[in-house]
């Protein structure tokens, strides 16, 4: 079969593959979802915001006469670029990252409801499962992209505007600029898992409530509620199970010796939230009756 195919004319092979996968395939659905996303003004606005917003924020914090000491690394933020990126990271994880990912993920299913296009989409030659995964992958891909852009822009602008002096770590130790850059980059990277957790949370809410406003706002509100619960004393037993706790797991990278227990826990917790959310969302999409509208 393969041997035959390799000798075939490319055009013929294309058509053969198309005939073989008569239902269009995940790739086609994915390409279509990405195309839809690219055509939307909203996605571009979020990406542009992720690139441009850190610059004025860095300039403004750098211009403060007194550093914002009540946040971790805040006390060094006005004279150390690494500390400033970590300050912004701490702030971003409060609600910015859930919001940025939810703007696309909370809308990607619900917009079909809003425009009444489920019937059109589901009568195309792709299965519900393929459409579900295409939308999920698109939302996750967007989350990765927006996080990468935000991290790169924040790190670059902080280092260029404030500088790359050695950083004082969370054990009071001095961290050289080279190591600090690696650790700061790693810290931003560790927020990917909980960010994807929020993406999946936004997807299930988007699927469940069929309303883009709910899909976008609710993950942000839930995130803030989780931050609040996580900050309370007395009920700390549920703290490790909160999605927002993983957002703080990077603290362990800046102590001496480093600790990675919370990072591993955070990865597992984020995975659990993602799997449960996607499972629920998939079940809802699978059983959904679209004949009504």
């Amino acid at each position: 079969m393969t041997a035959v195919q390799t000798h075939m004319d490319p055009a013929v092979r294309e058509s053969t593959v198309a005939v073989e996968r008569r239902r269009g395939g995940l790739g086609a659905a994915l390409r279509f979802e990405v195309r839809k996303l690219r055509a939307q003004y909203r996605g571009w606005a979020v990406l542009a915001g992720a690139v441009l917003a850190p610059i004025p924020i860095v300039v403004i914090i750098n211009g403060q006469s007194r550093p914002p000491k009540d946040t971790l690394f805040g006390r060094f933020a006005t004279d150390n670029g690494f500390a400033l990126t970590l300050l912004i990271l701490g702030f971003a994880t409060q609600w910015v990252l859930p919001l940025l990912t939810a703007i696309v993920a909370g809308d990607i299913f619900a917009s079909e409801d809003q425009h009444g296009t489920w019937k059109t989409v589901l009568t195309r030659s792709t299965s519900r499962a393929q459409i579900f995964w295409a939308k999920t992958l698109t939302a996750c891909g967007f989350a990765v992209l927006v996080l990468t852009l935000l991290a790169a822009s924040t790190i670059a602008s902080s280092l260029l505007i404030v500088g790359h002096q050695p950083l004082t770590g969370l054990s009071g130790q001095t961290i050289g600029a080279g190591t600090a850059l690696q650790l700061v980059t790693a810290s931003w990277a560790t927020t990917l898992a909980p960010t994807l957790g929020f993406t999946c949370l936004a997807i299930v809410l988007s699927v469940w409530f069929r309303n883009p406003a709910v899909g976008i706002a609710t993950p942000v509100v839930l995130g803030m509620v989780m931050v609040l619960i996580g900050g309370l004393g007395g009920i700390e037993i549920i703290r490790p199970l909160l999605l927002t706790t993983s957002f703080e797991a990077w603290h362990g990278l800046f102590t001496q010796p480093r600790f990675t227990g919370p990072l591993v826990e955070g990865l597992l917790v984020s995975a659990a939230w993602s799997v449960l959310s996607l499972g629920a969302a998939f079940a809802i999409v699978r059983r959904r009756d679209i004949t009504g509208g």
Partner: protein
Amino acid sequence: MRRTILIVLAALIAVIGLASVVTATTGGSSSVTRARLEKSLPVVFANTYVNQANLVGRNVTAASLHAKAMCDKHGPDVADIGPGGDWNCLMSWTDPQVPMPPEGYGKFELNVHSNDCFTASGPSKLTGFLTITDKHGKPVTNPLFEFDGCFDPHSDNAATGVYFPSLFAITSPNVTPTAQGRTTVKVNCGTGSQGCAGTVTATAGRVNLGTMPYKLKEEATGTLQLPKPVPAGAKEVTFEVKPSTGAGPTSPATIPVQPR
């Protein structure tokens, strides 16, 4: 569809409940504990101390400080576990240029967060004020005035065995005899272990006003009544403290008499 959602929600609640039970039975509801703070604070302190020393042009190593801490949350009747702004840590360290006070430690106030990070503010007498002058003569922020640290929530939770005595002090700014000739002074017992006990002997000039025993819990205040009335015309009363438990002022405290 609703049924699925309910099942998922029930599963989530079950997972959370199960995890809660597991955590509760394996002990300790909070990762913020006395032992972890007592191990973490001296490390952060020593490194920050070295930073401060470098700023002012001194050469100190973290190991040479031998910093030790004893921490306590919110007085003797509250369990020393959990986040809060009411942690106090007593810390001793060795620096020939900064001798410890007679009680042998300085008191740090800690605000510990549930995310296992804390902000500590040091005793200004020992660690300096917000701004210090660096070796080039420029004013810089004193890193020891206030500093942040984090500890591993899974780190060893065995007790450190570091204890410091509570410091007993007479806090009344003056002595005021009442119409009946009764005279009282306010005293307190600071953070530390096992509270304060001992005797206080009061004298006015050459007149012995008697000896008063005291026994206070740590982080408590009390009132002592002088056994004999303060003689008329006495300008001041001197109190000599002999602690049997805890530390006290090493030299007698002289307090002026406030005429009624």
